[in-house]
């Protein structure tokens, strides 16, 4: 019966080894025949890319093996976006069509998880141009109204304020300024203005 402590110790050792393997850039010499994953990509006329990965083991092509294609991105750290899988044919070639959805430099990689473990091909750098965005942005609505709304509104407001000012000034200035006809006599008394009209005196209740 394997003791719990032994399992824990084993797991710790494995985790430590995994951490350590992160630091190792290369690999120690292998006694077994090396497996190779050759990866290249070719752009077609319609803009899509044909990705091709060839899996060989000790020089012999391997068929019926699953190859995974990934794009390396720098998005909150180093991450890999899965582009899809393909199975190698009799020539050991797995091919997959890749339609990029963003432009610019991209780093692609092919990966195989087999009985010997997981390993990847060399990274492949491609430059994409003319790709249609997957989730395009939409143009703003009513662009003509938006362009004209503020100038028209400001013009109307200016005219209203102008009219208000004209009314007030015309009234006050017109009333305060003595007219030529009044210059000859003094301003009629308020009594006269109020009670002078003959009709008023005859009003009854």
């Amino acid at each position, binding site marked *: 019966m394997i003791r719990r402590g032994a399992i824990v110790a084993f797991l710790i050792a494995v985790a430590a080894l995994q951490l350590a393997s992160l630091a190792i850039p290369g690999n120690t010499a292998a006694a077994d025949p090396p497996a190779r994953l050759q990866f290249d990509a070719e752009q077609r006329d319609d803009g899509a890319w044909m990705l091709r990965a060839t899996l060989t083991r000790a020089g012999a092509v391997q068929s019926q093996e699953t190859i995974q294609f990934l794009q390396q991105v720098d998005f909150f750290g180093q991450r890999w976006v899965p582009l899809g899988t393909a199975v190698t044919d009799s020539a050991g070639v797995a091919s997959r069509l890749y339609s990029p959805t963003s432009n610019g430099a991209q780093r692609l990689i092919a990966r195989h998880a087999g009985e010997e473990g997981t390993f990847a091909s060399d990274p492949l750098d491609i430059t994409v141009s003319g790709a249609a965005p997957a989730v395009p942005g939409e143009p703003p609505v009513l662009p003509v109204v938006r362009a004209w709304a503020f100038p028209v509104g400001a013009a109307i407001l200016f005219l209203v304020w102008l009219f208000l000012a004209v009314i007030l000034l015309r009234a006050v200035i017109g*009333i305060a300024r003595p007219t030529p006809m009044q210059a000859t006599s003094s301003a009629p008394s308020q009594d006269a203005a*109020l009670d002078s009209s003959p009709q008023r005196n005859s009003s009854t209740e």
Partner: protein
Amino acid sequence: MVATAADPGGAIALRSAAFRPVQAPGRWFWPLFAALGAVVVLAAVAYGYQLLAGLWVAGYNDAAFYGIYEANLVAFIGVSYGGALVSAVLRLTNARWRAPITRMAEAMALVSLVVGGSFAIIHLGRPERIWQLITRPQAASPIVWDVIAISTYLAATLIFLYLPLIPDLAIARDRLGPSASRLRRAFYRLAAASWSGTPEQRQRLNWSVGAIAVLIIPLAITVHSVLAWAFSMTSRPGWHSTIFGPYFVIGALYSGVALVIVVVAAFRKAYRLEPYIGLPHFVSLARIMAVLGAVYLYFTFSEMLTTGYVRTREEASIVAVLLEGSFAPAFWGFLVGGILIPIVLSLVPAARKVRYLVLAATLAVAGMWLKRLLITLPTATAPLIGDVWGTVQFTWVAIVVTLGATAAIPLGLMIIFRFVPILALDEMMETDSRDEREPAFERSLGTRSPP
């Protein structure tokens, strides 16, 4: 006008009546002034507390982010429309009977506009930053449109109050000069702008008042439409309605005319103006009020029908809560007490007494205030995700501030009429002299019959 043997034209009696608030207000004036002033001061204290503690003291929370202050904003600016209607519209339609009440209506419009506009500041979280509306406004924001519209309308209302006041201020300058203080004399002299009643001056005044009357009507419509659009330019159910612009304008006109009736009745009683303002005035105003109320009822029905019939989920929940749910007592109370009863009282011959018409008007004003609350609260508390409604509290701060605003209107009017005549003297005398030359049927609408 009332003629006596000693005062054949009735002009002296008219003048003394118009200046009564200025010269001899009565024993009730100062106690009432103190009482109203106390309420206003208390409201200022409550607002100060709100500034220090935060808006939660007014009963707000995230699930009830608009409430009584926003309803007050709409209601108090709305009642100012009575002035625009009585002064401007009735002037343009040549309704001579409006002459004794225009001054009170215009003054009420000014005071309620200022009080209502202050709620735009009271409901803000950081009112000390409103200067940013000038330094960094966003032209697409309905609140910016609001500020522009209200300030333009305020300028127009001030001009509209001032211009017809010039001849009356000239009378004050000449009549009250010897007995008034130096400051008052200087004020009258300056404000009367050397008015002396010449034909040129009168012609210029008539043109100006006519022009501002024409301009103030679309301005008034714009102000309340913009206020309505601040609600309807959001996607919230219950607010996102195309009828909101006209809806608010009609509601404002309705509640405005109603408040004119109340204010005129109150000041008529207080300053003994019965000889000049009689039952026919109230009947005419009440009829206008009834028509506006009917239109408001029609708009309300149109709203409820279109949203209730199609029953999209969010809109249907608002209709349900108003017609049959938690807001139903308030809604039906508003409909019956605030619209139906005032309409009936205004039109039924048996109710053709001043006190019933004033009752109808009071119910209309109160009902319309409640309706503004019914526009604000259900939508503000309705959930947009899930189905948990918000709850609102009516705290003492919100109630006291509202009462303070209500008290500020009569207080403001009392202060204004200490300085300017309460009746539009010059206008009444001009109207009267014109009436003498008019056929008899025109006179039947006049100011002749005492109550």
